[in-house]
């Protein structure tokens, strides 16, 4: 390393000057960069912080002093949002639906992916292609027929219907991702299991699934966040029964009614209720969430 530097230096003396100006370049670039980073961090933090503050104010305060600390901690905004605006119901509905749909997606998705990745049988390629093709279609294309399919099955305005549809629409990515993952696992362990008299089913649940844990966690996080954010499907499938609404459609509705009733503090409290848990979860699982969400892009 050092020898090559010594050799190069006399041959190209103009680079000495080049290095000096590069140093001041770096300082300028870093200064501007640091500033830009701070500005962007504030752009992310301020709106959220501002909502938290406003959630404790009353309407007069929101209009007269939008930038100050609230005069009182008005928890009644929260109880109004939780019960009267029903954020509590919507929140729990979302948790219920996403818990089941993610569980179902992971179970069915990993079973399908495992068989498609590790077993040779007639129609395997066609079936794999069928799953992956789902990635190319926009969900919007399906909404009209999907509505009628769910209606005919008697599952309209039910959480069961919503959960099944979430699972079905999460399968393409889950199968695609986990298939690639199962293919990377060594075959020797599976063969040893079969020789030991393990059935195919218990081989999957006892040996292969634990080995696929890192991939499973990534896809599970991806699905939880995706299904939590779903808006179109609940709008179409449970829109008719307000008791079944999930958080995304509930919040959108609350912002409309807050306009009619001029209950802005209630809206801010509702927003806080939907953002704060995400901050906590993100704070704890930050590393896993980042790698889980970007795993799909990196492949």
């Amino acid at each position: 390393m050092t020898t090559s530097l010594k050799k190069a230096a006399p041959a190209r003396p103009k680079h000495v000057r080049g290095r000096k100006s590069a140093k001041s370049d770096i300082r300028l670039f870093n200064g501007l960069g640091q500033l830009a980073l701070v500005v962007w961090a504030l752009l992310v933090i301020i709106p959220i912080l501002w909502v938290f503050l406003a959630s404790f104010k009353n309407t007069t305060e929101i209009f007269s002093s939008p930038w100050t600390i609230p005069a009182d901690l008005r928890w009644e905004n929260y109880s109004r949002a939780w019960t009267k605006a029903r954020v509590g119901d919507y929140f729990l509905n979302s948790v219920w639906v996403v818990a089941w749909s993610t569980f179902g997606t992971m179970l069915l998705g990993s079973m399908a992916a495992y068989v498609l990745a590790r077993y040779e049988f007639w129609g395997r390629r066609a079936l794999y292609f069928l799953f992956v093709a789902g990635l190319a279609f926009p969900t919007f294309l399906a909404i009209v027929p999907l509505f009628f399919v769910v209606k005919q099955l008697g599952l309209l305005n039910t959480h069961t219907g919503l959960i099944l549809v979430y699972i079905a629409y999460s399968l393409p990515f889950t199968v695609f991702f986990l298939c690639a993952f199962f293919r990377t696992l060594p075959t020797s362990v599976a063969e040893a299991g079969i020789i030991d008299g393990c059935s195919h089913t218990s081989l999957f649940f006892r040996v292969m699934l634990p080995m696929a844990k890192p991939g499973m966690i990534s896809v599970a996080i991806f699905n939880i966040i995706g299904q939590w954010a779903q808006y179109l499907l609940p709008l179409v499938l449970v829109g008719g029964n307000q008791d079944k609404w999930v958080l995304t459609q509930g919040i959108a509705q609350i912002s409309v009614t807050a306009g009619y009733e001029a209950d802005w503090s209630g809206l801010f409290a509702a927003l806080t209720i939907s953002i704060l848990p995400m901050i906590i979860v993100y704070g704890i699982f930050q590393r896993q969430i980042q790698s889980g969400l970007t795993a799909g892009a990196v492949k």
Partner: protein
Amino acid sequence: MRHGKYPFIVGFLFAPVTLYVVFVIWPYLQAFYISLNAWRGFAVPPRWVGFDNFSRMLFEDDRFWRAVWHNGILLITLPLITIAIALFFAFLLSVGGKSKGGDMAGIWGSKFYRVVFFFPQVLAVPIIAVLFQTVYRPNESGLINGVLMKLGLDPVLFMIKPNLALPSIIAVLVWQAVGFYVVLFSAGMGSIPKDLYEAAELDGASRPRMFFNVTLPLLRDTLQVAWVYLGIAAFDAFAIVNVLAIADGGPDGATTVVALEIYRAYGKNDFGYASALGVALFFLTITFAALTLRVTKREAIEY
């Protein structure tokens, strides 16, 4: 591995395949058929009309063309702005710091920034849309206008002025997306061998030079993925427009997108037409994905 193989395969595939065919494949296939029918409302059965829905869409529906135009704007601006900002930040966070003998370090506090920037990705779009409704509000209760009016300035009517509404929506989409791509690009930059930067530094390359001549070419594959992802997001944009824009893609259709037109047609029980719009969206998306992959296809750089 032969013992009881087929019962096992069938047993494992039965539930996922059934669910997938019933709720995904079958509706998608039906959508193409329904798009060739006039079908308004629950009471009247669908009636075959051939390509009537498509000629109505292409020749009579101004809103459809406005929607396509807006998706086009999103398709160009959303990836360009997001990728530019994210690349800049990712570069700063990965190799922006002081270097010790060519060993590049991230800028001070890079971990903190990465965590904060990424956070909006975790929030659901409708919640972000409601958040920005309050940020953009046209009176003193809005975050931005509250400041402007305190300073004695006129409020900016973000979502009310037709020429301001779409840029305001794009800003929110960029706000949410940047952090994800910062993390994605950082990962890509992390896999670039250090000695390449070392060599560049020995040759006296400035930081911007290093960025354009070393980082960017080696990040090609990641950039392509980012472009496809953001493009697909640009073709959707339903949740943000539906919640944030006033009057259903308003003011006066100034923010409408194809996905919103589909939902509007569906809401009016105009099922045939909604499906025809869906077919159009499908072909737009497929064309974009195929074009991107074709145009950006080039031999990978070996290192």
